[in-house]
C-alpha cells in the first residue's frame, strides 16, 4: 500500500529487485514482512483482502505471493485456486498451528510452500529463496543431471546413488521418490503430490506407502534415519528435501 511500484520491474530472478505481494489482513504481520523483505532487497506490495490481492496479482505481476489463509473476505484456498487458473507465480501460504488440513488443501490446490505462524526471518527467507529458485530452475529446460549434497551423490541420468562414495541400491520406486524430492528440493511436497508423482494417479488414498518408502529411503541414505538430514518430515503435511543454502 505504502510502497506502490506501479511500474513493475523485470520478471526474471536475476533482475534488479524482485516484487513480493503480501496478502494479509493483520497490520503487525504486514509490518514485519514489509520491514524484513524490504531490508532483503525486495519490492513489497501489500493487500489487506483477497479481492484486492487478486487485483494486484493481475495488475502488478509480482514475482512471488505471500498469502495468509485466514482472510476476511475470501478463503485463502480460493485465492490460490483463482490465481492458479491463469498464473504459476510462486505462492507461499501462511496459517496458524493446528490448521494442517487447510495447508494441505492449499498446497494441493497449487501453493508452493507454507509457513506456520509464528515464524522467524530465517524460515521466511529460506522459503522465499527456494520458491524463487524453483521458478528459475523450472525455466531451464535441461538441468544438471547430477545432484550432490553432503555425503549424498545422485546421478539422475544414470540412476546411480552413492552414499559416502559407496553405491547404494535403490528399488525403482525408491529412486523415483528420491528423484521427485530432489527435483523439488527445498519445497514441501504433500503426501498426495508424492503419491501422484511416484505411484501415478489413483493411488492418493495410500499415504502410508509414501511414509513406508520414505522410511526405507532414509535407512539407506541418512546418517541417522531417526534424525534425518535430507528428507525432513513436515508433520501432517508431507516431506521436504532439505537443501544447503
Amino acid at each position, binding site marked *: 500500500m505504502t510502497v506502490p511500484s506501479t511500474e513493475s520491474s523485470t520478471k526474471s530472478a536475476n533482475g534488479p529487485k524482485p516484487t513480493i505481494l503480501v496478502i494479509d489482513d493483520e497490520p503487525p504481520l504486514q509490518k514485519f514482512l514489509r520491514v524484513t523483505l524490504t531490508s532483503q532487497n525486495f519490492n513489497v506490495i501489500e493487500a489487506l483482502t483477497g479481492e484486492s490481492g487478486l487485483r494486484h496479482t493481475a495488475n502488478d505481476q509480482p514475482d512471488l505471493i505471500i498469502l495468509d489463509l485466514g482472510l476476511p473476505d475470501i478463503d485463502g484456498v480460493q485465492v490460490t485456486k483463482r490465481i492458479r487458473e491463469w498464473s504459476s507465480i510462486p505462492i507461499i501460504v501462511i496459517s496458524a*498451528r*493446528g490448521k*494442517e*488440513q487447510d495447508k494441505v488443501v492449499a498446497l494441493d490446490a497449487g501453493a508452493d510452500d507454507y509457513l506456520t505462524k*509464528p515464524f*522467524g526471518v530465517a524460515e521466511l527467507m529460506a522459503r522465499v529463496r527456494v520458491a524463487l529458485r524453483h521458478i528459475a530452475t523450472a525455466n531451464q529446460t535441461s538441468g544438471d543431471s547430477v545432484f550432490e549434497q553432503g555425503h549424498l551423490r545422485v546421478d539422475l541420468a544414470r540412476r546411480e546413488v552413492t552414499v559416502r562414495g559407496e553405491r547404494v541400491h535403490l*528399488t*525403482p*520406486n525408491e529412486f523415483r521418490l528420491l528423484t521427485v524430492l530432489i527435483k523439488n528440493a527445498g519445497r514441501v511436497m504433500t503426501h498426495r503430490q508424492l503419491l501422484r508423482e511416484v505411484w501415478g494417479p489413483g493411488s492418493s488414498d495410500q*499415504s*502410508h*506407502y509414501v*511414509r*513406508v518408502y*520414505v*522410511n*526405507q529411503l*532414509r*535407512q539407506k541414505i541418512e546418517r*541417522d*534415519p*531417526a*534424525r*534425518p538430514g535430507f528428507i*525432513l*518430515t513436515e*508433520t*501432517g503435511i508431507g516431506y521436504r528435501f532439505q537443501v544447503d543454502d
Partner: protein
Amino acid sequence: MLMGDARPNPDLLLAEVQKEEAKQRRGRLKVFFGMAAGVGKTYAMLEEARARAAEELDVVIGYAEPHIRTETEALLLGMEILPYKTIEYRNANLKELDLDAVLARKPALVCVDELAHTNAPGMRHAKRWQDVAEILDAGINVYTTLNVQHLESVNDIVERITGVRVRETLPDSVLEQADEVELVDIAPEELQERFRAGKVYRPEQAERASKHFFTKGNLTALRELALRTTAQRVDAQMQEARREAGVKHAWAASERVLVCVGPSPMSPRVVRSASRLAAGLRAEWIAAYVETPADVRLSSDDRQRVEATLKLADELGGKAVSLTGQNVADEIISYAESHNITKIVIGKPQRPRWRDVLFGSVVDDLVRRSGDIDIHVIRGEAGDRTERAAPAASRPTTWDGRGLTTAITATVIATLVGWPLYHGLHGPDASRAPHFSNINVLMIYLVGVLWVATHHTRLAAIICSILSVAAFDFLFVPPYLTFTVSDQQYLLTFGVMLLTALTISTLTHRVRAQAEAARQRERRTAALFALTRELAAARTTEEIAAASVRYIHDVLGQRTSLLLSDADHHLTIKGDSDGKNDGVTPKEMAVAQWAYDHDQIAGRGTNTLPASEGTYVPLRASRGLVGVLGLFGSDGRSWLPEQRQLTEAFASQTAIAVERATLADEARTAWERVEAEFLRNTLLSGVSHELRTPLAGITGAATALIETDQRLSDEARLELLETLVGEAERMERLINNLLDMTRLESGGLNLKREWQPLHEIIGAALHALDHRLKARDVRLNIPADLPLVNVDAAAMEQVVANLLDNILEYTPAASPIDITARADDREMFVEVADRGPGLPAGTEKRVFEKFFRAERGPGRRGIGLGLAICRGIVEAHGGRVFAANQPGGGAVFTFTVPILEQPKMDVKT
C-alpha cells in the same frame, strides 16, 4: 428389676410430644354432639361462638343451617357470616360452605354446622368433614355439630333401631380426633314436644322426616347411643390421661383384630362390627380380603363391593389389605400369625349345610386351625344369600363353536375306533358274541370326553358326554340302532359317564383359572421387576419418567402421567404415556397440585374431587414428596384393591428412583461446582503467572533494546534478543498447551489417523525441538522392524515433544535422554527416560494429572498441562501412559500405542 413398670415408655412419650406439636399447629375441633336433630346443637354452638367473640376472638360463621327457630336466628345477629358458595345442581341452587373463603379469611375460629353433610357434586371434597379437616390443617379452630346417627360405626345399629337408613355418614376417627366433644342432651319427651310444635323441621321437611323417627322408643335408643359414644370417649381420654401421667396402661396390651372381607353384601356389616369391637378394645384392626383363583370369575359388581368394603374399613380407621392365595383360611391364618392378630372376625356363612360338607367351609377351617386366636362369627341377614347367588349362577359355560366341533369329532372318532373292536368288520348282529365288551368301548368314549373337558368349555364337555352316551346307546347297546335300552344297568353307566365329564371339566376349569390368576400375578410381578430394573438403569429424571409411565401404562392399561415438583413445589409434567407433555388440562393440574400439597390421593375414584378425569397418587420418598402420578382410566370404573396396591408399589418405586436421580444431580452439581472453582483458581493463579513471566522478559528486553541501544555491547544486545525470542517461544508453547487442553476437554480432538512408522514421529519431534536439544545427548534405541502405528501424526509428535519438553525443564542442562521403543503382540511401548533427579516419591501417578506440578527446586515453570495433554492424546488413541523412577536415577515416562492389523502393501519394488 430396678426399672419400674410404671416408668413411661420413651417411645410413647415421644409420640405424645409429637402429637402435641402436631395439635398445636393444627386447629382445635370442638364437636357439639347430639342424639337427633332438634336437641339444640346449633344453638349451643352459636351461643358459645358468641361468648368467644365477646372475648375479642376473631370468630366467623362459615356455615349455619337455615333455622326456623327465632332464638337460633337471633344468635347470628351481629356475627360475621361468610357468604355461601352456591352450586347449581339439577336446577336447584345448593348452598355450600365456601372452603377457600374460610382459608383466605383465616379467622381464629369458624363455625361450620352439620359435620356429616355431603357436599354437592363439583365441590373439592365429597364430604364436609374433609373441608373441616383442611380448615384445621390451616391452623383454624372449628366448632361444628353432629348427630349420633351419622357415625359410620353405629350406622347399621341406627338402621335397625329406626328402620331409616342414614346416607350421610362420617368415619368415627373424625370424632375421635376431635379435641373436645360437648354432648347436647335433652329428654326425649321434650324433643318430641319440640317436634310437634314444628320447632325441629319446617312443615315441608317434617313430611319427609318420618314421624316414626321421633317415637319415644327411637329417641331413647338414640340418646343411649349418643351417651355411650360420649362415655367411651371420656373413658379413652381418661386412659390417655393416665398414660400421660406415666401410669401403666390398664388394658390388655396390643390386641389386634382381623376382619375377613368378601364380596358378600353382608361384609360391610361385619366390618362395622369389627370396628366397634376394636374400638371397644382400643385395638388396631385390619380388614383383609383374600383373592383366590376363583375370583377371576367374580362379577364386576362383586369386585366393586369388595373394594367399597375395604374403603369403608379404611374410613373407619382400620387398615385394608388384600392377600392372594389358594385357600382363604390358609391365608387368613398365616397372615394372622405373622401379624400377632388376637381376634378374627368373620361373617356367619349363609349357604346350605350340604355345601359346607361337600366343599368345606372357611369358618370351620378357621375355627379348627386358629389356635390361640379368638374367632368371632358375626350374624348376617337372610336376604343376602340370593344376591350372592345371582352372579355365581351366571358364570362360565360360555359358548364356543370350536368346543362343539371338537365334541362331535371326538364322538365320531370314538365310534370309528369302537365299531371294529365291538362289532368286528361286520355289521351289528345281536346273534354273534362281540370281540370286546362294550364297557371297553365306553372307555374309548370316555377318553374323548376327557379330551374335550380338558381343552374346551364345560358346555362342550357336557355336549360331548351326551353325544357319547347317545352314540353308545344307539350303536353298542342291544338292541342296536335304537335308543331303547334293554338292560337297566346301562342307565347307571350313562349317569356315571355324565358325572365323570362334569367333574373333569370342573376340575380342569379350576386348574385353568388358577393358572390364569397365577399368570396375571406373574405378569404384574414381572412388570414391577422390569420397572425396578429399568429405573435402576435410568440416570436422569427424564429417563426415569419415560420408563415409569411406559411400564405403568403397559400394566394398568391406563394413560399415565408423571408430574414432578420443582424447588418451589410446583408440578410440571415430566412424562406421559401418550407421548405428549401437554395432555393435562389446567383444571386437572390443580387436582394434581392439591394431591401433592396435601400428600393425599385425589381425583377420580377417591373422596376428593371425584369428578376429575384422573386419579393422582402422591409420590412419597424418604425426603418428602417428589411429585404425583396421574392415572387416566378409559372408563369410570374404580380401582380394584390389587390394582391399587400395584399402583402404590409403582408409585413408591418411581418416587425412590426420582429421588435418587435428584440426589445424584445435586451431588454432581456440587462436585462440578467445587471442581470448576478449583480449576478457575488454578487457571487464574497459574496462567496469569505463567503468562506474565515471559511477558515481563519480552517487555524488559525490548525496552532495553530501544532505550539503551547505543550503550549496549554486541554481546549484550544479542543476549537481549535471544531472551526476546526465547520468551516469545515459551509463551507460544504455553498458549498451545492451553488450547490443546481446551480442545481435549471439549472433545474437539479430531484425530486424523494414518499409518506411520514410529521413527518418523520421534524424528519430527526431535527436529521441532532441535535447538533446545543441542546440548543434550539424545540416544535412540528404535528397532528398524517395528510395525506401523495408526495414529494422528501431529498429535503423537506433540506427545513426544511434551515429554521431551518436560525433561528439558526438569533435568540438568547436559544430562542425557534415552528414547527406546519396543513392541509386543498388542502394544508398542515408547519410553522417554532422563538422568535427572527423578520423580518425588508418590507422584508417579499424579504427574499426568491436570495442573500437577512437581516441586522440584526453584525456577521451575509451566502450569502442569504438558503431561496431562500427553495422557489425553494417548488415551484418545487407546493407549496408556505411566511414569516411574529408574533404578540408576532419573525418571522414565512410557506411553503405549495399540498395534492393529497392518495395512496392505504391494510388492516392494
